[in-house]
């Protein structure tokens, strides 16, 4: 059951926050430079994979490390910690041949959101 958070704890709460990074030795499936395909998932439940990224191909820019997985955490089905990657998608890939040639989106994708591309 929830409790009352006291005023005396507010300063510490502000300074500390609540990182969802998990200190666990979880294998990563991808490395910077890898080409990845965002999964075409359409859950009725919570996800942080937006529609405009699904089914698109990008390149892993960096590995942020291991974090709680929101899709399961929102349903209290476990933290399922896994790697989160910054993935680059070109505007042309996302928005078509008429889009700005130079521009790019960088979005953070959990391991469970992406598959390798040969």
């Amino acid at each position, binding site marked *: *059951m*929830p409790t009352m958070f006291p005023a005396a704890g507010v300063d510490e709460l502000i300074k500390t926050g*609540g990182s969802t990074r998990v200190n666990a030795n979880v294998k990563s499936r991808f490395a910077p430079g890898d080409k990845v395909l965002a999964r075409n998932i359409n859950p009725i439940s*919570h996800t942080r994979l*937006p529609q*405009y990224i699904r089914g698109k191909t990008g390149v892993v820019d960096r590995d942020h490390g291991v974090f709680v997985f*929101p899709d399961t*955490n*929102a349903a209290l089905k476990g933290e399922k910690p896994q790697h989160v990657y910054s993935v680059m998608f070109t505007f042309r890939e996302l928005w078509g041949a008429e889009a700005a040639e130079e521009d790019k989106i960088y979005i953070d994708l959990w391991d469970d959101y992406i598959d390798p591309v040969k």
Partner: protein
Amino acid sequence: MNGIHDLGGRHGMGPIDIDPKQPIFRADWERRMFGMFILAFAGGHFNIDQFRAAIELMAPAEYLESGYYEHWLYSLETWCKANGSLTDKEIDDRMRKLSKGDA
């Protein structure tokens, strides 16, 4: 879910209301709502993913037309009702009581 909150790339949402003089809180109720959310989170009413998931259940028109902190109220109420901390009747009764008390 493929809800209205998933806004990336949509057209037709209108001009950006830049207003450089916007205060951080536009009304006192926004201040109270801001504080309540953080404390409810810190007190274990929900995790951050549950909090966002509930906002995503708002009716689309309501989501777009309501102010930002109204989304937070919707989510807080959803979770308080789910864990038994609050009921709609209690809220309605209290609102009635408070409005009678005001001049």
